[in-house]
């Protein structure tokens, strides 16, 4: 459902992403791992059509993000890093806006918004303005925006960052609940999360993929059998270790 072909991104002299290729099929949850500055966010921004790639491309449900960006964007739900949202809007108005831009009208629009509110359990804050929400609720509101149109591809950049253990658990359950009928990419710095929700994981470093496999396969790369050690082995520079 999602195919990434040799994506590259340069910011001047910085090579943020240097040729990343992978596929995600329906029913898969792909964990996207890598140290700070590895290029996870940049890769996601290129797949979602926010940044134009310097090279390579991505196919979302068969639509090339360079040639048919709007069609590709229709198939994607995106939760950007730090959950940006319009602070002055109320939760309800924000979701209505998202639904309207996604092409829903009338009763259909109301239905979509209501079901997203229910799925993300944000009923009690629906009339609160987004700027006054706690981080966890804010994250859930932007999450609601991402799943409102029931997209076949869901891309989430650190969806559990900064949440309390209960909220983390809720978000993971939501991801697992949707996994069967979608192709999902989740970036994270929490390695237990990979065990908890991901069916496969990719580790990138300096914009290149250094490992790609199921959590079990990755663990077997280290004698200790722990994901932390594999991560450290693959991503630490020689001089740091």
């Amino acid at each position, binding site marked *: 459902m999602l195919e990434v072909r040799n994506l590259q991104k340069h910011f001047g002299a910085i090579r943020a992403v240097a040729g990343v290729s992978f596929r995600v099929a329906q029913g898969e949850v792909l964990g996207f791992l890598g140290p700070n500055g590895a290029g996870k966010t940049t890769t996601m*921004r290129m797949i979602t*059509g*926010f940044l134009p790639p310097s090279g390579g491309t991505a196919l979302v449900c068969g639509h090339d993000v360079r040639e048919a960006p*709007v069609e590709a*964007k*229709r198939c994607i739900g995106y939760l950007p890093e730090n959950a940006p949202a*319009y602070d002055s*809007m109320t939760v309800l108005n924000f979701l209505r*806006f998202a639904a*309207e831009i996604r092409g829903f009208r009338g009763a259909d629009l109301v239905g979509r918004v209501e079901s997203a509110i229910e799925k993300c359990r944000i009923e009690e804050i629906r009339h609160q303005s987004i700027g006054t929400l706690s981080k966890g609720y804010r994250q859930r509101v932007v999450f609601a925006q991402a799943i409102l149109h029931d997209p076949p591809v869901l891309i989430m950049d650190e969806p559990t960052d900064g949440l309390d253990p209960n909220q983390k658990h809720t978000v993971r359950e939501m991801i697992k609940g949707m996994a069967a009928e979608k192709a999902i990419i989740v970036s994270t710095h929490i390695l237990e999360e990979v065990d908890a929700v991901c069916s496969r994981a990719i580790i990138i470093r300096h914009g290149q993929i250094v490992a790609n496999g199921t959590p079990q396969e990755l663990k077997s790369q280290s004698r200790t059998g722990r994901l932390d050690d594999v991560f450290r082995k693959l991503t630490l520079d020689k001089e740091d270790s």
Partner: protein
Amino acid sequence: MQAVRNCCAVLKRELKSYFESPVAYVFMVAFLVLTGFLTFSVSRLYERGIGDLQPFFFWHPWVYLLLVPAATMGLWAEERRAGTIELLLTMPVTMMQAILGKFFAAWLFIIISILLTFPLPLTLAYLGDPDMGVIFCGYFGSILLAGAAVSIGMLASCLTRSQVISFVLALLITLLLILAGWPPVTDLFVRWAPLWLVDAVASFSLMPHFESMQRGVIDLRDVAYYLSVMIFMIAAAQVVLDNRKSA
């Protein structure tokens, strides 16, 4: 069709956000008080004893110079500061639809403020017998002028993520475009520059094109001038955003 709907969705959101915050009310009050003060206290509209709104329209470029940048400074700068631009541009809208939606939202907001001055022509009609055609032309020209100012402000807003810088930039560009054709300034230049040069520079200015409309003449060339300013600024905004949206 979908394109128009997308523009409208962006427009509605933007317009709502004006009215959801105190900005809209502060702005409108400031607009009315400022135009009222300048028209009545400085230009002494009623004491003139002439039944027209010339002194009222005279001040519009100067009021827009100050207030339009305030209304447009957030359009993209805030979107970039808060990171919501990433959300907006990963939704199925094109950049142009988003730009047009925002542009028309800000313009519509200014138009609403302009139309709120309606008691003025009404009183005038009650007191005397003004030429309503001239007044209509004045409003028409003022709305076009506001559109040009909004497009300039929007471009300035694309250039930075700081609303303050965006405000100052918009103010400077607008001021330049006003002064280039403002008689007190052009009169200075005529003394040492050839007349054709002064006229050429002045033809780029917002002012001469507004003057004839204040007098009740709608010349297609003036309308075309304002439309081309808007189109140019909108196209420039597209180029700037394409290059700088993530920076």
